[in-house]
């Protein structure tokens, strides 16, 4: 596991991740100054799939905390985080990727927003969820692609 992560990190550093069709492992991700420019996967994000993940209760469930006019057909938008209308006007792609991967690197340690692509540093993770990120690398890219469509 660890070794693969390190190997992938090395590949990413050489800019070969995309070429190899590989993906960046959670522990190999490097967020700098609240940005993450390099996509996690070779395959570009799919905004339509990202939209489903945003609303899906068992996946991103972003709607649990964020209202979003683009999903007006879905009932029960949460109020815990800010509405995401116009998120793409406020944040660059690299910032949005960093927010989804590990919001704590962007908003600070106290944020309630979960880190969606992180596997270490957890306290008492439940059974099967231990050692796994909430979203896969591709799902993160899909969500980021979707967030980029939220313009006003």
């Amino acid at each position, binding site marked *: 596991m660890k070794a693969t992560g390190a190997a992938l990190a090395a590949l990413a550093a050489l800019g070969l991740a995309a070429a190899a069709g590989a993906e960046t492992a959670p522990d190999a991700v490097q967020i700098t100054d609240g940005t993450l420019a390099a996509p996690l996967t070779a395959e570009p994000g799919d905004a339509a799939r990202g939209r489903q993940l945003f609303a899906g*209760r*068992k*996946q*991103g*469930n972003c*709607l*649990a*905390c964020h209202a979003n006019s683009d999903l007006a057909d879905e*009932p*029960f*938008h*949460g*109020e*815990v985080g800010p509405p995401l209308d116009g998120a793409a006007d406020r944040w660059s792609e690299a910032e949005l990727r960093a927010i989804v991967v590990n919001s704590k690197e962007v908003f600070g340690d106290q944020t*309630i927003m*979960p*880190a969606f692509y992180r596997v270490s540093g*957890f*306290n*008492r*993770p*439940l*059974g*099967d*969820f*231990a050692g*796994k990120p*909430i979203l896969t690398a591709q799902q993160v890219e899909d969500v980021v692609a979707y967030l980029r469509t939220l313009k006003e």
Partner: protein
Amino acid sequence: MTPIKTAIALFAGTGLVAGLAVAGPGPDEDQLVIEGETLITEVAAPEDHPLDTIYSGWRFRSDETQALEIDDFENPAMVAVEYGLDLWDTAAGSSEKSCADCHGDVDSLAGLRANMPKWNEAAGQPWSLEHWINWSITEHQGAEPWKWESEEMLAMTALIGLQSRGMPMTVETEGPMADWIARGKELYYTRVGQLDMACNQCHEDNWGQMIRADHLSQGMINGFPTYRFKWSGLGSLHRRFSGCMKNIRAKPYKRGSDEFVALEAYLAARGAGLSIETPAVRN
């Protein structure tokens, strides 16, 4: 390790019962009056409290859900209370005695639930109501203890809790209880699970807000055991703790564990002054 369904949604998310209206943000202005008695659902927080005013979870539920708790004939938990009364009068164990043989009428236990969890000198730790009941069953009746979440235990905790309905929660906070409350407080503020959240992030920082279809309350414990639509029945306080932990994909502590007793002690102190509502009704 127990196998866990990977299908657990992020947060409860599904607490909504079809056809019930969802309340808006914040607590509502409704008054909880049961059988002519007004219960305290809003009170100035005790000293050194992070909140100014504390509210019962009842104030965050929809009118339809609230109505079921107002009327004892509508309250779906009252069937269990009836069963509790049967158990109260039933002789059991090697003593061949019933609870009533030693305690008389169950209202002799009025006030007990309001002081839970309560210090047990012999055990050197506080005990939840369930622990006290099982101690009496084994020591005095000479019978087999009940499982924490069994129908019998839920019926008996609901029956005994009901005797304190309307009384303010007043857990002991001094002496050796202070350490347990401090330990519970630490657990309350410790982030856990794959979602990496702590109790306070939902129930202190975001109470009154909607988290998907759920209206966040301050997470008070005055209604337990509580009837929940989601459970289609009564459930213990420790089951609720366990549920909140699983919703953030954290490995829950065991029911009756020191951790949950400590958390219960802290939350009892945190909710001091709110009326006992057992058996409450929630979605």
